[in-house]
């Protein structure tokens, strides 16, 4: 099997799995209880909180555990909008956000909030001047992702947070694709809120966190017990939290070494595909892009067909298009970048990770050109073009 879909999810690092495994049977206690096995787990949770805080250079009391990136995004956006609804009802986001942000904004627009969707250039970089012009008295929140999950383009977060600050507007960033991959400092980024997810950097699924800068006014989203200092109810997911802490610790230590290797493999894959297959378009920013992500359009064929043929060969990648997941529209991200529908239908995303080897890349470079050739042979447009 060749797995090249790390932006979708990553395998859990066996070292993470090992620390987690103790918290199912041996140390199963509910941390909110009073006895010793509970108290110990409470300590472990706080240790994990410190490790997550260290990874993004925050204070540990600014870290709140959630069920993952989607909940963190929902909480940040809905929680602050509700808390500030007397101040204004206008939110600024981008056209290329993850659906966890886009659909949360859509929900708020049904409740009377006004949403501005900032356009991007052909590389997927948000239009800063558009943001400046969109700001008005009613603007209460800007939410822009750090790196895009489909094309990997990295947004100028520091610049946007400066604008937000100057205008006294809260700023949230979805860092689900960057935390654990590249060094992150909430202080340097200057953000008020940041979402992260465990399973994107070799931690378990079902756990994430929201960084909430001290003093940020936010309503609770998940109402329940007094967990997370009364701001997020629900029994502590102890194995998940401990696992997230371990994943954060590993990422902090090994991130740079991983980057070197993964970047080399991604670049080799990109170069090889462009050399071996004609009429390929590389998407995303040439430099300001996640080192593991390769998004491309294969002209004159459809992405899903390529993916299924790769699947027959046990090569797992993804398509920008949500073709099988209930929508026939090509990727909203590629369309926002100005790529025509008929080309966007041919999009493919390879996202690499630390368990990929050079042989994996060589194998893809051997198989992919054959698949494309086969599909182009039956494509009316390919023959017309020739």
């Amino acid at each position, binding site marked *: 099997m060749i797995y090249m879909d790390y932006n979708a999810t990553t395998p859990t690092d066996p070292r993470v799995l090992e620390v987690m495994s103790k918290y199912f049977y041996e140390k199963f206690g509910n941390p909110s209880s009073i006895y010793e096995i509970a108290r110990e787990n409470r300590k472990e949770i706080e240790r994990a909180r410190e490790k997550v805080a260290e990874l993004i250079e925050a204070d540990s009391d600014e870290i709140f555990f959630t069920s993952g990136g989607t909940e963190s995004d929902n909480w940040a956006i809905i929680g602050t909008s509700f808390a500030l609804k007397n101040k204004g009802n206008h939110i600024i986001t981008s056209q290329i956000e993850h659906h966890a942000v886009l659909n949360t904004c859509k929900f708020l627009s049904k409740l009377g909030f006004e949403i501005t969707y900032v356009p991007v250039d052909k590389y997927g970089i948000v239009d800063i001047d558009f943001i400046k012009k969109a700001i008005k008295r009613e603007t209460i929140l800007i939410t822009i992702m750090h790196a895009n999950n489909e094309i990997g383009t990295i947004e100028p977060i520091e610049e946007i947070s400066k604008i937000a600050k100057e205008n006294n507007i809260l700023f949230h960033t979805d860092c689900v694709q960057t935390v654990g991959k590249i060094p992150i400092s909430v202080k340097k980024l200057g953000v008020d809120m940041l979402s992260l997810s465990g399973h994107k950097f070799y931690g378990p699924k079902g756990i994430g966190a929201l960084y909430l800068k001290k003093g940020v006014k936010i309503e609770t989203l998940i109402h329940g017990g007094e967990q997370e200092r009364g701001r997020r109810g629900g029994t502590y997911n102890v194995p998940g939290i401990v696992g997230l802490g371990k994943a954060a610790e590993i990422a902090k230590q090994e991130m740079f070494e991983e980057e070197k290797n993964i970047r080399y493999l991604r670049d080799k894959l990109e170069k090889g595909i462009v050399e071996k297959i004609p009429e390929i378009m590389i998407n995303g920013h040439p430099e300001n892009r996640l080192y593991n992500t390769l998004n491309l359009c294969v002209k*004159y*064929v*459809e992405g*899903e*067909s390529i993916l*299924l*043929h790769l699947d*027959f060969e046990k090569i797992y990648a993804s398509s920008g*298009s949500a*073709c*099988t997941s*209930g*929508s*026939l529209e*090509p990727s909203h991200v590629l369309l926002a970048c100005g790529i*025509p*529908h*008929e080309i966007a*239908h041919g999009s493919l995303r390879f996202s690499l990770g630390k368990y990929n080897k050079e042989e994996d890349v060589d194998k893809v470079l051997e198989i992919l050109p054959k698949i494309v050739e086969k599909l182009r*042979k*039956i*494509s*009316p*447009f390919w*023959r017309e073009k020739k």
Partner: protein
Amino acid sequence: MDYTEKVLEYFRNPKNMGRIENPDGVGKVGNPICGDVMWIYIKVGKNENGEDIIEDIKFETFGCAAAIATSSVVTELAKGKTLKEAEKISNKDVVEFLGGLPPIKKHCSLLAEEGLQSAINDYRSKKNERNR
């Protein structure tokens, strides 16, 4: 709903791919903006009773797995049939043959039906022109 084994099989090894040089009829349906385009070529001959039959049929398709599988199936169902029989082939026959399609992919089977009809219509209108 996922693709059936049969869809995957026909997608993987489609029959009757390619084009026919100097076809008697061509049906071009679909739209690249929607992500599916099908071109169906037919060669028409006569059977023992002197009826028009589809002697040869081929397709070229740009699209997803369902589009490629339905193209292949419609050509197989039509091959050797009289035009009158072939005209009756519906998208339901194609879906049934494949053991079902995900609801969102049903339009691919419609495209296959339309592609075949449109190739037959093209043949007839060309014939009428010649006879005029």
